[in-house]
């Protein structure tokens, strides 16, 4: 469904991505691993139209969206939960969810979206009149994911959803990722927790200083000595 073909992205003179290619199929969960500064967030930003690739193409169902504005990409069914959550701090939880449904016009669809969000994250119903800025880190992450789902995307880009969360909440987030996947939504998951990410995904890519250095099924990546050492904190060769 989503195809990234050899994109280069630069911030001014600084090269962040070089010839990055990847694909995510309809309803597939794919993870993107890499050290700090490898270019994971930049890849997601390029897909959602926040930064423009200098070279290469990005296709969704064969349609070229390399030059499409970010709002049009949302309309195509790709929602991005950015690094750092980027909530609307002065909006209530409910207003954050409603603005997530900006592109949806039917009142009925928006109401259903809210119900779905509350079912996925019951805490958001309790907190619905509370300002987003006053939520805990875990609640903010849940709200960020729920808000993206309000657009009813076919593909979700998740940027380090477990960052800074207590282990119990990390488990909770990964449970929700499985649940979202079960509804047929494709997911491109950027994670620092490679063990969990490879567990949730069927395939993965590894970025190093802006290039894809490894790719393959999760099971294969898990056994790759370099990945075991660099991302799983294990001895190089599998036992």
């Amino acid at each position, binding site marked *: 469904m989503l195809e990234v073909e050899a994109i280069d992205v630069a911030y001014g003179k600084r090269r962040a991505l070089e010839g990055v290619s990847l694909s995510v199929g309809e309803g597939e969960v794919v993870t993107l691993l890499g050290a700090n500064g490898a270019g994971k967030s930049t890849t997601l930003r390029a897909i*959602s*139209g*926040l930064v423009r690739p200098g070279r290469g193409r990005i296709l969704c169902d064969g349609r070229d969206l390399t030059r499409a*504005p*970010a*709002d049009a990409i*949302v*309309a195509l069914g790709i*929602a*991005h939960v*950015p690094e750092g959550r*980027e*909530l*609307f*701090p*002065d*909006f209530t939880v409910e*207003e954050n969810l*409603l*603005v*997530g449904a*900006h*592109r949806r016009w039917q009142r009925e669809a928006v109401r259903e979206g809210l119900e779905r969000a509350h079912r996925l994250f019951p805490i958001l119903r309790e907190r619905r009149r509370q300002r987003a800025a006053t939520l805990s880190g875990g609640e903010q992450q849940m709200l960020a994911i729920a*808000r*993206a789902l309000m*657009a009813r995307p076919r593909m979700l880009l998740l940027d380090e959803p477990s960052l800074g969360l207590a282990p119990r909440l990390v488990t909770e987030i990964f449970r929700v990722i499985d649940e979202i996947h079960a509804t047929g939504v494709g997911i491109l998951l950027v994670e620092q927790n490679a063990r969990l990410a490879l567990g949730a995904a069927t395939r993965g890519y590894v970025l190093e200083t802006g290039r894809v250095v490894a790719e393959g099924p999760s099971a294969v990546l898990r056994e790759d000595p370099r990945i075991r050492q660099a991302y799983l904190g294990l001895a190089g060769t599998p036992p």
Partner: protein
Amino acid sequence: MTTAALIHVLVSGLATGSIYGLVGLSLVIVYNATRTVNFAQGEMFVVSTFVAWSAARAGWPLPLAFLAAVVAAAVLALVIERAIIRRSIAATHWDVLIITLGLSLILRALAGIVWSHDDFPFPSYFGNRPIAIGPARVVPVSLGIIGASVVLMALLGALFRFTRAGRAMRAVAQNQTAAWLMGISVPRVFSAAWILASVVGAVAGLLIAPVVFLSTKMGLLVINGFIAAVLGGFGSMPGVVVGGMLLGVIENLAPLYLPTGIRYSVPFILLIAILVVRPGGLAGRVHRRKV
């Protein structure tokens, strides 16, 4: 002071205060969406008001002439935003500030060429003959200005609180990146904010012109609007309205107690006083400047 005099001062203070509030609102609407202060706002409503004046002189019925002013305001804002502000994409907020300052001078010069810098009586839609309110005598114009402003403010409040477009504008004000990711077209919100602000300014111009005479000098009202906005914490809409009303009332009250010559300094005295006591303005949150 007698009750009659007090009522009189209060009413005329609230009337000018409403105008300051509207002008302040127009500044804040653009600022919240784009983080730039549009110093040309004053000259923009001068041009719009002159359009109504020309239309009325050409024999258009008054309501139609006002409609022409509102349309002119919207078109002018759209053109300026699309043709100048949006193109200076690499400009910093400071650059844009200078651009709008320059625009205000250019627009004033152009308005002067087209309409001259003279004072013109402006057709009034509210009576000018005082009516009695309790012991006091009040001119209907003042009540009309207050009434119309309050209605417009309420409409703006409803727009921002209850509509999808209003929510999108508030979203852009808080976090542009996130707004993009929600599928909001941020450039379109910028245009909408400029247009809305310009229309609000035009209404202020149409309301005040019969009282002060129409001239290119009317654009200086932007300073009072700016002070109202700062008093209100620059960003808070209810804050601007309260700031404007306060400014209007105190400005009208001050000459009764202070030497008349000081009247024009009153807004600034008030501004300094409030900023010393409440650095974030009346409604604003405080972000202290490091010293």
